[in-house]
């Protein structure tokens, strides 16, 4: 009787888990294994190919364009992660305070997350290319008169602004949920104990939301490292490849440039880099995570 009940339970379990495993394997694991296989070939994306062993990996470390794209991606990811987390935390603190229309404001601030990356990119491209230069001319501000996206030195800042604007929404929501886990009476105890708002934040609030900081750091770093939509819609990796991210390079040269095998090797390395980054971040923050 008991065994029959268990088998029914197990049937339900497997009927739920098998489709998910299959989907994950077909759309994730199999392409990844395929990618790893092609990274050992000189496949162009069409025609025949030969096995080249680790040659693609050796070439990767000597390719200046790849190294440049890594440098851009790291710079973009580090600046983006810091900016997003600082801004989100400030915003979450404001939206968690006793203010009117709190729920409505939270909804409004979440809108950037609902819009697609490309849509936002094209809107900002219009703003950077037409609206801001027009305003620059109108108000006679010289540095605003040229589109930031056309400057090899500063185009990455334009991409960064868009990336941060969009990423802040989700990160803020995660921080708000983190702030709501801090019991109200702990804040009251801290007020009675004599904390100023500043001390309260650093000594009470921040240590208690470290698990959420940790999640946000990993998520934002990963998302910023994989920047693609903003590059495609804002700069197309220009000017002079100054905003070429790794994902964009893999896509562009892998599919368009006849470097499918070579860029597959790049994708494998990139995957390892992201995993390592996440593990290191988790290790650092998990030491400080505290249970409420």
């Amino acid at each position, binding site marked *: 009787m008991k065994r029959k009940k268990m088998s029914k339970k197990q049937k339900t379990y497997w009927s739920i888990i098998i489709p998910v495993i299959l989907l994950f394997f077909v759309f994730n694991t199999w392409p990844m294994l395929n990618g790893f296989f092609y990274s050992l070939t000189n496949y162009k994306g069409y025609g025949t190919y030969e096995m080249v062993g680790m040659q693609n990996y050796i070439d990767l470390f000597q390719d200046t364009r790849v190294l440049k794209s890594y440098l851009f991606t790291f710079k973009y990811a580090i600046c983006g992660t810091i900016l997003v987390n600082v801004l989100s935390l400030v915003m979450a603190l404001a939206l968690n305070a006793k203010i009117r229309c709190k729920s409505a404001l939270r909804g409004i601030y979440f809108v950037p997350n609902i819009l697609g990356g490309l849509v936002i990119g094209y809107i900002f491209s219009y703003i950077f290319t037409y609206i801001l230069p027009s305003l620059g001319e109108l108000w006679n501000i010289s540095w605003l008169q040229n589109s930031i996206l056309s400057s090899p030195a500063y185009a990455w800042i334009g991409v960064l602004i868009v990336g941060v604007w969009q990423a802040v929404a989700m990160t803020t929501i995660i921080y708000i949920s983190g702030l709501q886990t801090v*019991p109200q*009476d*702990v804040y*009251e*105890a*801290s*007020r*009675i*104990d*004599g*904390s100023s708002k500043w*001390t309260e934040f650093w*000594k*009470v609030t921040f*240590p*208690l939301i470290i698990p959420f900081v940790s999640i946000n750091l990993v998520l934002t770093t990963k998302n910023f490292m994989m920047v693609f939509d903003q590059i495609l819609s804002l700069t197309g990796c220009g000017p002079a490849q100054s905003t070429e991210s790794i994902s964009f390079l893999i896509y562009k040269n892998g599919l368009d440039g006849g470097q499918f095998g070579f860029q597959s090797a790049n994708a494998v390395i990139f995957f390892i880099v992201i995993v390592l980054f996440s593990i290191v971040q988790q290790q650092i923050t998990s030491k400080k995570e*505290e*249970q*409420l």
Partner: protein
Amino acid sequence: MSEVCLTHINKTYPNGYEAVKDFNLDIKDEEFVIFVGPSGCGKSTTLRMIAGLEDISDGELTIDGKRMNEAEPKDRNIAMVFQNYALYPHMTVRQNMEYPLKIAKLPKEEINKRVTEASNILGLNMLLDRKPAALSGGQRQRVAMGRAIVRNPKVLLMDEPLSNLDAKLRGQMRVEITRLHKRLKSTIVYVTHDQTEAMTLGDRIVVMSDGEIQQIDTPENLYSHPANKFVAGFIGAPQMNFMDMSIEETENGILLKKEGARLALNTEQSRKLKERGFRQGSHITLGVRPENLSIDQSGSDQKNSLEGTIDVFEMLGASSNIYVSCGDQQIAAILPAGVFCKEGTPVRLQFDLDYVHLFDPDTDRNIMADQA
């Protein structure tokens, strides 16, 4: 000196709800005052106003003669123990106790001295390096008290500090708090809905209902001379029995009548009733505590007794409770140990008339406690 004066204190929320109405109380130095009442009566709100965690809508709060209405909680020289302990989860016991002292920028030696002293008093020495998550409820409560007392506050506020503990631990902690008060000689304001805590801990008790003070008195007086029906019913377990009786004037004094009961009041009680204008035929609410009822086994004095059927018999060990159906009313009585009753059997309850209370049915005021 740590005196707290609340003068005409009111708390009205933006939606118009009046949580506390015209609260007046002078708390003396070293006094242990209890706010007691049912949930939502405004006791915690009043405590939070003293702490500075709630704004005072109207009235004046002074601590040691200084107006504190606008002062920040940290500037009131108070400490508070919360219902859910409110310990900092990421800090060890030692860090929790050190925190307010570090904020006050006390020298390291002084901080160490005070933490050691408090942990000695509260038996926390072995727990100093643990975090709150690794402590039991009773231990957390002690840490919360430790964090409060290290500051040597003028006033110690406690908001239902024992309500999350089991009955046994609550009893132990009650004794510890009494000891702590005797040792520290601090002024304590303590909120509870538990009348046992109120009666055992307090020098004075403030009974509240619907945001209003019902009575401020010593535990003995609250029990023996409740000001009104609410206080009489709130203090004591099982609660006081109330019966609607009609008055019959006789040559020997006043008789209270109800179906199946005739109670002859004593001279003092009769005089008070007459002074208050209660005459033949008028009604009165009689209150009698379960401990002032006994089982009349002889049946000799049928005049001051009431007949009924035992509904429920509860054996408590040191005593027993019986609940007796008398017409449409249920009367509770406490019997001494060794007396056993069978449910469903008829019984005659004898009144100890010297301890009955008489309430005006219109105002619910205690006629015997009121000044004539």
